């Protein structure tokens, strides 16, 4: 378990730094790339938790697709590729207060409620189990999500179309 702990803290540190950079850097492309780091860190944490399927989905969907979309978005909006001006507005301090208040509250709640719980993982969760669960227990939500994706797809096309 020690190894896993060590790995966790390393990845966590990467993620924390990455996340902070995402919201503070003045270079918009860098921000997208820092986001990749955070997402990849997330995938790594999933692996540490033994949930491999979601980890790979994270890699494929997020890093593979979403980030590409982001980059497209950046380019299509002709965002400056280098830092020219501050990318943060004058709500920094209230934003910080809100963020701290919220995360502080939930952090306190977490410590208060699950302060002594351990992750009782005995063995990694296999993809087969996930598949069975989805197609047995959560079939309807799964279908609904499918429809949602389709709707989003069509919606995005309709909206972004130039006419």
């Amino acid at each position, binding site marked *: 378990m020690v190894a896993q702990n060590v790995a966790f803290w390393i990845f966590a540190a990467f993620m924390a730094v990455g996340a902070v950079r995402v919201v503070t850097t003045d270079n918009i492309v860098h921000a997208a790339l820092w986001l990749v780091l955070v997402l990849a860190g997330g995938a790594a944490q999933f692996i540490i938790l033994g949930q491999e399927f979601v980890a790979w989905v994270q890699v494929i969907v997020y890093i593979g697709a979403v980030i590409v979309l982001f980059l497209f978005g950046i380019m299509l909006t002709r965002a400056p590729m280098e830092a020219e001006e501050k990318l943060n507005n004058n*709500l920094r301090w*209230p*934003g910080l207060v809100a963020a701290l*208040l*919220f995360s502080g*509250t939930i952090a306190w*709640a977490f410590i*208060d409620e699950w302060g002594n719980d351990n992750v009782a993982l005995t063995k990694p969760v296999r993809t087969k189990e996930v598949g069975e669960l989805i197609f047995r227990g959560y079939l309807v939500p799964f279908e609904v999500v499918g429809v949602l994706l389709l709707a989003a797809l069509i919606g995005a096309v309709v909206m972004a179309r130039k006419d």
Partner: protein
Amino acid sequence: MKHYWFLDNAWLIPLIPAISYFVILLFGKRFGERAAWIGLASIGSAWVLACGTVVQWISHVNASEHGGEPGGEHGAVETIRAFGRSIKLAAEGASAGGEGHASFVANPIIHSTTWFQNNGFKLDVGIHIDGLAVMMLFVVTTISLLVHFYSTEYLKGDRRFNHYFAALSLFSASMLFLVVASNTLQLLVGWELVGLCSFMLIGHWWEEKPNSNAALKAFLTTRTGDIGLLAGVIMTFFVVQRYTGTGSFDITQVNQAAIGLSLDGNSKSLLFWCAAALLLAIIGKSGQFPLHTWLPDAMAGPTPVSALIHAATMVVAGVYLGARVYPIFHEGLNIGDGGINLMAAVGGATLLVGAGLAFVQNDIKKVLAYSTISQLGYMVMGLGVGAWSAAIFHLFTHAFFKANLFLGAGSVSHSGAHHSFDMKNDMGGLRKFMPKTFATFMIGTAALIGVPLTAGFFSKDEILATASANEYTFFKYVGLLGAVMTAAYMTRCVYLTFFGEYRGGHADHGDAHDSHAAHTADGDDHGHDHGHAASNDHGHDANGGPHESNFPILGPLYFLSFMSIFAGWIFAPMLHHIFHWEIFEKFPLWVDPHVGSRGFPILEHPEFAWIDPILATAAGVVGVTLAYLFYWRKAYGQNITERNGALGAGKKLLVNKYYLDVLYTDVIVGATKGPIAQAAYWVNQNVIDNVLRYTGKGAAGAAKFVYKYIDQKGVDGIYNGSAAGTSALGGLSSKLQTGRLQYYALLVLFLLSAVAFAVVITN
């Protein structure tokens, strides 16, 4: 018990005009002027039914009296002797009265059906028919019938002829509903509805601002009194609840509970407050001082309406209420104790204030309006001094002679004065042009000032006699003083209207016709077409100079004149003293409640004494004489005797009789007519009215202030301010509504955090 069809089915009486209201309202346009006949037919049928109830009630009373449903709960009566003299005991009444009217029970006819049920409490709607209700049914339907008939001529060609008759029907229905009410809440419903009709009819010609102002003033002033009614009716419910355990508005139960609680002796404060609240309602509705100011203004309505609503029926609703739940007042205000009490004081003050004001009016309808106020003061004072039967009797006679006077004034204005009511400028000498109207008006005046043997004489007399018998000596003199003043101002009024030179010829017809000036609404078809033709008609009439009115106007006047004299003879102790005919004593027998000792205070009728009629007559004579002397001497010098021989002779007689009083004439009458009345009027116009006006203005001002500074700046400011505070905290100068998405997100997240924080804390 025998069944009496008319009494059992008295609910039909309000129902018929109600149906007529809807018929006229919905199909009025189709009928045109014939709508009036629907109203007339409905009120006619109601009148027939009312007469039926009168006949059957009398036979019911007779049957009870002779058929020996014997004397109430005498057994219980003896035991309550110890509780002091605020209750006149039935045993005493039965033995001392000797007349027998307290010694038998004539149960009221009560039928009711459940209206609705709320929390186990059942509210009934129904009829409570007793002598009082029957009397009122007769009065209301009679006057209403006459006024309907009169209006067909008087309002001919009016721009809203149908609406007028619809409103009259609704008024009759509501008033009759009020009269037959079997519980106080039902009474309240009728009470408010008559107020609505009064509003509609005062504001009948609402195109002119003064009319709608008057309508508003009337509604709002009576509504102020209705605060008391709301509170009082609610308290009647709890009076019953305290007595029996379950609350009820039922009038019989309320009366019993009031008497019962008073005997138990521990709920005086509730009874007092209930009586005080209801008294406020009476003050508002019946034009009592200090809320009387609306009544003169209400004369803005058509004259038949003034006669029906603001003289004969609606304004006496307050008196009726007082009579209906009399035990509340009797016990709450300790009326049986003599001396002074709130109700008598209010009545007495009104009596004098109203009479004083009548001196300085130049508008004939306003004289009559103040006179009405004064007479209503008599009635309330009568109730306040324990003269229940006399007050109700005065209500009865007053309805006839005051309606007579109002309709007479209407006739004068309609046919003699180009629709003006200004005595000083548009009238004078009219007795030559319209002798019939003059005769009826004189009879009404005679009844009002209490000329012996007229109706007003007997009723007023009875109040004064009972007042002194019940140890309310002070109020007896107040009443006498009122009689003097009444005689004086009516003399002045008659003089200005019917004697002297005709002063109307100069009036510009265009102005004088404004009340009938058909408003030509451009291009719409909503029933104004009658207006043109008819107003031409009237133009023709008016151009012919003053002339006598025609039958639809005179007919009611004849009938009312008849009643102004003879209505008083059914309660005339003086005549009874002389002739011993039963008819002269019938009114108390028919109308007094005969329900046993626990249902009503015992009503005592004083033994007849010659001193009372003599005093009252003297008061009238003094009043007439003083006014006569004053107006002659001041205004018209010596030659009046040449112009009118009869009055000249009368003058000589009076002068001779009161030779010694000549000295006082100028001083007292002059002072009363001049400074005192002027001062009273000044107070009325400048203080009381101003209190109302400035209260209104103050409320509006306060409202503006509250709205502008507290609502818009203060309360709203707090919200806007707190937002600004948040903004400042965040280094923001923008306002709450920045339109910035992220700002909203920030707000929502703050809120979310706060919620989450609170959830965590509470767990």
